[in-house]
């Protein structure tokens, strides 16, 4: 079961997205700020990180830079998630080292496709991208 680290400071976003991912068969671990995200990436060894960018303590850009700079975590794919939708936000996320970028509101089939592409086709649980859990 692929493990996803969700770094998100908004409690409702965290609850909603983690529950939706778990229903698709992923194990979800949580962090509520960028510093916690960096530490969880090291301690939990997730298969992928979903990184909100507007985070307290340490923002998502810097947290991603640190994850990508550390030998133990640099291989972990990071998808930036943000409610900002400007083209410069995407470029900034990719420059920080994010492997992909998606906007909120999350369209789950689209996000699942990006997750599975970065996981090398390893689908979470029994559901495939965009398909509801049976």
């Amino acid at each position, binding site marked *: 079961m692929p493990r996803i680290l969700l770094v998100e400071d908004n409690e*409702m*976003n965290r609850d909603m997205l983690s529950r939706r991912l778990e229903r698709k068969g992923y194990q979800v671990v949580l962090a509520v700020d960028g510093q916690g995200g960096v530490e969880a990436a090291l301690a939990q060894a997730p298969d992928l990180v979903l990184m909100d960018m*507007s985070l307290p303590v340490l923002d998502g850009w810097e947290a991603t830079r640190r994850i990508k700079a550390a030998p133990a975590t640099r291989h972990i794919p990071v998808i930036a998630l943000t409610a900002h939708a*400007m*083209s410069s936000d995407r470029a900034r996320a990719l420059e920080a080292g994010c492997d992909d970028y998606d*906007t909120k*509101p999350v369209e789950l089939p689209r996000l699942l496709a990006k997750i599975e592409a970065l996981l090398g086709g390893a689908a979470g649980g029994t559901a495939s991208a965009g398909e509801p859990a049976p």
Partner: protein
Amino acid sequence: MTGPPDGEAGERHELPAELIHDLRTPLGQVIGYAELLVERAQEAGDEGMVPDLRKISAAGYRILELIESRFTAVRAADAGGPAAPAERKGH
């Protein structure tokens, strides 16, 4: 006569990027929880609830479309002047 077309594809207005961000965040929660409830209703065999729940998420997506079609995000640093093209929202 030249100018922007009428209707939803017409004139776009500038809004601070932070305001658009702040609108999209709860909108995402409305859509996301509605879709979560659809899944749960389907699993529980409560198909009667599904059409109404889908109306909630559809209305959320409609608001999102309106935001994206009517408004252009500009950074606070650009306030008081037109945003540079590279700083405007894509598409």
